[in-house]
């Protein structure tokens, strides 16, 4: 029977102060986890309310104004407060130093500072609810955002601040990966999750400053009418869209790349198989990071940008699809001749493959110029990015949370209930969002409060799906919290994995390892050794 170690990072010091002033990357990771779970809860409730309103045409539970504020807030909260920090800032913070055998990240104080910046940004963003809400959509397109009476400045200022949090996390990770790896751990011996975090961090530091200046200019446009983006003042609204998407398209990859990193870990560990095409997966992350900066114009095929620019952007867009495709096939090939077990993390890993493939393929629809003209700004787009973001990133995040849960807390969750919750989430997700592909290709525009009767059955079905989804998440919350107190101790290496973090105790000590870990094998050398599972 496993027992918890006597001393670990959770009981090293006690009291609220020991958390609020901690420099331990693991504790900061946990602090982030609290933040993003809070954000996910807020965003999720808003999503449910939006879906309930859409159950039937016309007014169901709220008026148009409230609805517009809710979907805006749902988008902004989910993107800026949840998905972008989710995997890198929470799981990445917790794991990156452990995976490279370091004691901490390169700049622990900057790390803590970025959490406080995150909280400050969140306060500003959420303050906008109190000060009249925001009804522009998370994209803040001008001139609507310059003339609406709602509290755009509070929200954009919040997101501006959140950007710094994201930049500092990315900066910290890049330096950590370059300078803090343990002796002998060369680049090709890094776990693929670390590669993914590296590619993500590159995008974070390159793209986020442009979001910063965009929002700053938007604030100036609202305050002084500086005339860069507002057509009435001689500005160009399409230019705003260039600025915005120069950040926000790469940001999509800030969201999905770390998820892909988790999937690489999950598929290999639960297949007990050396990852297929290590370098292909590693470099495709970097390729995605680079090409993601060349494709932003595909959000603007119908925006009034020039036909030549649209054509160039369409062509470049297809280039970014190929590395993603390569990754999917590599993961599939990893499973070949493996010893596959269907523990909960793997179930989420497999759902990722299933859902992300659909999300990726429907992305091809939207990259094709003529088809995008029809599908742009319809529910097809909504479904597409939910398949990528929720079916991709959130599934990977949940997989990662379940995978590293015993490492974080030392205790295991219920296998039965976690499988039940997974099944409900998977079914609910597909009910909610596959329906929206059909709604969209039949012409239902997005951000509609009211709609024509012909769309009602599909909308109702989608709303029911969202309730199913909610039930899944409620069950998940219950068994995870329960496991914190009653879960069985998991042992150092419950899944039989090979990366560094599993060599330490669960939970690990404050400086991660009792003695510096030795690199005796690669992260995926399941052909040489098969480590024993310490659980069950």
């Amino acid at each position: 029977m496993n027992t918890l170690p006597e001393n670990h990072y959770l009981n090293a010091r006690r009291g609220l102060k020991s958390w609020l002033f901690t420099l331990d990357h693991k504790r900061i990771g946990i602090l982030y986890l609290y933040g993003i779970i809070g954000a996910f809860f807020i965003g999720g409730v808003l999503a449910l309310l939006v879906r309930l309103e859409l159950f039937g045409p016309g007014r169901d539970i709220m008026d148009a104004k409230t609805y517009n504020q809710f979907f805006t807030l749902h988008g902004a909260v989910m993107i800026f407060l949840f998905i972008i920090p989710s995997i890198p800032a929470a799981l990445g913070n917790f794991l990156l130093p452990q995976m490279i055998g370091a004691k901490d990240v390169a700049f622990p104080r900057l790390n803590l500072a970025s959490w406080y910046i995150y909280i400050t940004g969140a306060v500003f963003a959420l303050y906008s609810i109190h000060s009249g809400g925001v009804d522009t959509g998370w994209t803040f397109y001008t001139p609507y955002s310059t003339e609406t009476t709602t509290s755009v400045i509070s929200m954009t200022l919040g997101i501006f601040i959140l950007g710094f949090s994201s930049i500092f996390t990315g900066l910290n990770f890049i330096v950590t990966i370059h300078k803090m790896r343990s002796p002998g751990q060369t680049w090709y011996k890094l776990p693929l999750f670390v590669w993914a975090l590296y590619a993500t961090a590159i995008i974070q530091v390159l793209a986020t400053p442009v979001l910063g200046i965009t929002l700053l200019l938007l604030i100036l446009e609202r305050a002084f009418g500086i005339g860069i983006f507002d057509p009435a003042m001689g500005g160009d609204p399409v230019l705003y869209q260039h600025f915005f998407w120069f950040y926000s398209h790469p940001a999509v990859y800030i969201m999905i790349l770390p998820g892909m990193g988790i999937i690489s870990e999950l598929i290999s560990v639960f297949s007990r198989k050396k990852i297929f095409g290590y370098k292909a997966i590693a470099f495709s992350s970097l390729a995605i990071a680079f090409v993601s900066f060349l494709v932003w114009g595909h959000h603007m095929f119908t925006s009034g940008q020039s036909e030549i620019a649209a054509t160039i952007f369409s062509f470049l867009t297809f280039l970014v699809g190929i590395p993603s495709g390569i990754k999917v096939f590599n993961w599939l090939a990893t499973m070949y001749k493996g010893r596959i077990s269907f523990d909960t993390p793997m179930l989420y890993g497999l759902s990722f493959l299933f859902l992300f493939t659909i999300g990726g393929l429907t992305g091809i629809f939207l990259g094709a110029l003529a088809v995008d003209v029809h599908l742009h700004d319809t529910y097809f787009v909504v479904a597409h990015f939910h398949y990528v973001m929720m079916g991709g990133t959130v599934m990977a995040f949940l997989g990662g949370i379940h995978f590293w849960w015993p490492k974080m807390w030392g205790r295991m969750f219920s296998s039965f209930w976690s499988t039940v919750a997974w099944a409900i989430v998977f079914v609910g997700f597909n009910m909610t969002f596959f329906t929206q592909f059909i709604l969209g290709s039949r012409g239902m525009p997005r951000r509609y409060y009211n709609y024509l009767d012909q769309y009602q059955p599909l909308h109702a079905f989608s709303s029911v799906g969202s309730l199913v989804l909610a039930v899944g998440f409620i069950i998940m919350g219950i068994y995870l919290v329960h496991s914190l107190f009653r879960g069985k101790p998991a042992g150092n290496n419950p899944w039989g994995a090979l990366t560094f973090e599993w060599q330490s105790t669960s939970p690990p000590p404050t400086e991660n390892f009792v003695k510096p870990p030795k690199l005796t094998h690669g992260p995926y050398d399941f052909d040489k050794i098969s480590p024993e599972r310490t659980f069950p």
Partner: protein
Amino acid sequence: MDTTGTIFLTPGGSTIAGEVDSLFYFLVYASIAMFGIVLAGLVYFGLRYRRRQTDADTPTSGRAHNLKLELLWSIIPTILVVIVFIWGFRIYIKMHVVPHEAMEVKVTGQKWFWSFDYPQGASTVNELVVPVSKPIKLLMSSKDVIHSFFVPDFRIKMDVLPNRYTITWFEATRTGNFDLFCAEFCGDGHSDMIGKVRVVGEREFSEWLEAGLSGGEGMTPEDFGARLYVSKACNTCHSIDGRSLVGPTFKGAFGTRRVLEDGGEVTIDENYIRESILEPQAKVSAGFQPVMPTYQGLLNSREIDALVVYIKSLK
């Protein structure tokens, strides 16, 4: 040309729709094939290579490369996407190169209705009437924020920008009514900014044009007002059954006193209605946003009168 429609697409109604649909279905089938491969792999490997008690701890194959396979799954998708790009691009060019003989209609989007000005002088609101099998060029601009002109059945969409012209065109292939949506979020009434494209035969179109130019000749002011209430899109924001939409209801409004946003009070009479149509921001009813656009230049005196009579009649 596809007029039947499927689960994914409504029946097309324009010359371009057929082409877009072909590419769409090519993509659907190609995606199903690709997804089929992934799904088959997942299911087959999952069943075939399940971990069993007996072999759980034996090492697995260390093979992590297969050049042929890797080339295969890099090159085939590349070829496919290049095909899709070129295909999509060719149709896109057709969407943008307008035939010379096209009739040009000026489209204006504003919160929250569409107005259409014909070269012959007629103008309509929220209803674009066009002849079948004739190319129609739309020269579009917005008076306030960005809107987007979207007719799903025609498979066309183009943003309508403030202070700039954008262009799109279509040629309807069959008569009937087609939904027209605003596809770019534009505020509280975004989802009510729904219009209609009515495609009619050549002769019917000429008759309609003439009738439109005559402007309610031979109708009572009340009937004419009722028509204008719909055709000029008053109904987007003002109900006639007592419900509050974006604006106050017309029902029973005439002759009552109303509290204004600035605290003042006003009696709803001919003056007030007229002023509110032409200068909507002058006296805004309490509890409502000052969002109504001016109808200056969109309605002539006779039309305003007809609306006043109509509103008066709504007891």
